[in-house]
């Protein structure tokens, strides 16, 4: 097994957190993994993104020109990454903020999910939109087990927000079930 994903959205949407969660889960499942975030002088309030590579073998490049999957949480990120997703790759698109009509490619496996709406309406926690998207990504790719993600949540949620862990679990589940139902 050898896969990679770029996750991208606005700063503050929790992109780096879902990337880290996915990476830790992969590690806990005994895989090699690299997590590479965008860093430094970004446009203030601009975009955030990260690349996660997961493999059964030693990983070379942590940076990926043409990802197998892409989780896109906002408009600018779609513009930036759409051209690079591999032919036949997965695009998880947050249709709460991005019009799916903007996806001009037809050679992708697109899952457009109203992540913000689900987070707000089903999870009652608007901040958890990216967690919803991660759930959907896992449903589509099966790269790690959902169970592992749940178990690893305490490692990425700070002590202060520990009590929200169940909500995070819900968000992951909602994302997963949306994806499964659509499929």
């Amino acid at each position, binding site marked *: 097994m050898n896969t990679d994903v770029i996750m991208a959205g606005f700063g503050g949407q929790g992109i780096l957190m879902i990337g880290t969660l996915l990476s830790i889960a992969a590690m806990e499942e005994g895989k090699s993994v690299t997590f590479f975030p965008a860093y430094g*002088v970004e446009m*203030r309030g601009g975009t955030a993104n990260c690349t996660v590579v997961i493999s059964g073998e030693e990983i070379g490049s942590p940076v990926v020109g043409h990802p197998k999957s892409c989780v896109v949480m906002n408009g600018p990120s779609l513009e930036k990454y759409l051209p690079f997703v591999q032919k036949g790759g997965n695009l998880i698109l947050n249709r709460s903020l991005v019009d799916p009509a903007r996806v001009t490619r037809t050679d992708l496996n697109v899952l457009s999910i109203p992540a913000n709406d689900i987070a707000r309406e089903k999870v009652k926690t608007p901040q958890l939109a990216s967690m919803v998207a991660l759930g959907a990504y896992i449903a589509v790719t099966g790269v790690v087990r959902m169970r592992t993600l749940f178990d690893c949540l305490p490692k990425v949620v700070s002590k202060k927000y520990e009590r929200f862990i169940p909500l995070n679990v819900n968000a992951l589940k909602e994302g997963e079930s949306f994806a499964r139902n659509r499929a």
Partner: protein
Amino acid sequence: MKNKAKEKFTKQVFSRPRSLLDVSTHYCPGCHHGIAHRILAETIDHFDLREKTIGVAPVGCAVLMYDYFDVDFVEAPHGRAPAVATGVKRAQPDRFVFTYQGDGDLAAIGTSEIIHAANRGENLTVLFINNTTYGMTGGQMAPTTMLGQKTSTSPYGRDFRNDGYPIRIAEMLATLEGTAFSARVATSTPAQIRKAKEAVKKAFDMQIRGMGFSIVEILSTCPTNWGMKPLDAQKRVLGEMSGYYPLGVYKERKQADFA
């Protein structure tokens, strides 16, 4: 631009100053860099200096300011703007030269350059944006960080026993012979903004009249790295910050030393 307002109210009483390009900045919501920029541009326009100005950009959040102003600009290494400006002004004494510097830029790495520019009475104008932190690099402690303030490199709060004291630049530079004008202002209320403009005008005027070095320290905000809403950040300036950094004019030369 067509708009209904114009039909009824024909006199535009506030618009973008000529020297400020019609583009969005990269600054965070509510960051006072934007206000300082506008004041600067208005003052350039006021004195009709756009075509004879050379600006010196700092390294800090304002590093891209040359993308926002319609004047010639040179980028200085971190902290060296006063030295670069000296090089420009010595080569072109008849041009208007200013630097715009953050507190990391001016009060930390650039300490020596600002002190000696002031001490030489270098005929320059400096806008000094004190937001008590290194904004651009992610909110580290600056020499101006307040005691007790938590930053990404003072996670337990600034402690004078390890980190020393917040430094008062406007006061220190006022003690130097070469300084013609030194003032501290803020931009957190409409009244303060008006006073800030007055101070910047005076600082410009000093250079225009060849009186020597002029500096305006502007107490500013960094909502992002302070972890505050913009309006709360303004309140911090009005309270805690102006308490330690009193607003006022610390030096104003009335007459040139040479006449």
